[in-house]
């Protein structure tokens, strides 16, 4: 059974294998296809009309399916790979090992936010930004310049919320585990604030340009799994008949053959260490 591990516990070999697979997907163009797909959804998901990937109940099952698809592409390069997750409540410094030159690389330099260390530095020639909102070709980060990483207490407060989601099923939903985890509401602004704290590409609509995207979302996915265990009688909502929103048994774009109901249990694909 595939096990997704905390990135802090990866061996040097596991880190190298993961990085090399990322670079291979980038070389073949598969990687940029994922960036493009994500951006299409983030630009079109709206509070007052059709919404699937973000600001809606299907934020969690949509990203679970998206990560599984990406993980399967990595496994075509090396079958031993699973997505690691980044617990930013613990590893919350620019100097944390996740940002070492052997893994995700470090912060951007002050002049232009360009990442100059690690495997995704522009100077390697292996990580050009192609799907972009502006014309800089290099990966950018401005870690800590804006936003704050959520604390464990803030995450625990969100995990304690018993109701999966609430009307109006968007970024204004109150009392909604999904919306407080996504971070449009709540003191921690949990998922959103991690994007903001990373800065650079992670703060934009083309956030998967930064490989940290996958480690961040793997942790959000794990928190959904943790929440399910804490609230076994709490169901995905809404159940049926909701305009502009993916109900439990509706199919999700872009796949059109998978429903939130089919994404509730990840154990057929992976477990968490």
């Amino acid at each position: 059974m595939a096990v997704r591990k905390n990135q802090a516990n990866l061996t040097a070999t596991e880190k190298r294998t993961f990085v090399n697979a990322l670079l291979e997907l980038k070389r073949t163009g598969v990687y940029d296809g994922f960036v493009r797909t994500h951006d299409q959804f983030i630009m079109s998901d709206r509070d007052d009309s059709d919404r699937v990937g973000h600001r809606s109940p299907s934020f969690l099952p949509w990203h679970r399916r998206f990560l599984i698809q990406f993980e399967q592409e990595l496994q075509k390069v090396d079958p031993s790979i699973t997505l690691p997750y980044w617990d930013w409540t613990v590893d919350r410094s620019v100097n944390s090992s996740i940002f070492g030159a052997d893994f995700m690389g470090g912060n951007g330099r002050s002049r232009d936010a360009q990442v100059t260390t690690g495997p995704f530095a522009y100077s390697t020639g292996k990580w050009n930004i192609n799907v972009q909102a502006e014309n800089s070709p290099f990966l950018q980060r401005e870690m800590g310049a804006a936003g704050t990483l959520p604390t464990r207490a803030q995450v625990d407060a969100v995990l304690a919320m018993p109701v999966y989601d609430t009307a109006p099923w968007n970024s204004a939903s109150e009392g909604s585990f999904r919306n407080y985890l996504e971070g449009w509401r709540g003191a921690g602004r949990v998922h959103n604030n991690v994007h903001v704290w990373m800065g650079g590409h992670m703060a934009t609509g083309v956030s998967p340009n930064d490989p940290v995207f996958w480690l961040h979302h793997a942790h959000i996915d794990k928190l959904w799994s943790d929440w399910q265990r804490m609230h076994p009688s709490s169901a995905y909502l809404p159940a049926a008949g909701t305009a502009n929103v993916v109900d439990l048994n509706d199919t999700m774009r872009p796949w059109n053959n998978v429903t939130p109901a089919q994404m509730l249990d990840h154990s057929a694909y992976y477990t968490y260490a």
Partner: protein
Amino acid sequence: MSSNVSRRIVLRGTAAAAAGVALLATGARAADHTGHTMDHTGHEGHGTGLAAFDEVYKGRRIVGKPVTSGEHAAHGGFAVTIDGKELHVMRNADGTWISVINHYQVFPEPLSLTRAAVDKLRGASLVPIQM
């Protein structure tokens, strides 16, 4: 009501100039007022934020104006350009704003959102994302 509006616009302009971050282009106040009038007709429940603007900020020309038809109307009824290139913006249900450059951080109205995008661009140009 309208005297409150005028005072708020004047105060905002004064604050911006005092902070030394913006050179208000000629006619910006008139444009503000036009935009605000449209705000009252097109949106309920939030009295601030949809004022038009046209200014030079950190050397970049930023223009924002309410729109009532086409694709922009669906994005919250406001269109923004930086040096003539479109900045994709979106209005949240609570009246706050995000852009493609700051997609996970909310701003109270399009002007601060646009200035934040200029800050983050550091001189780079916006490009349309190929779909």
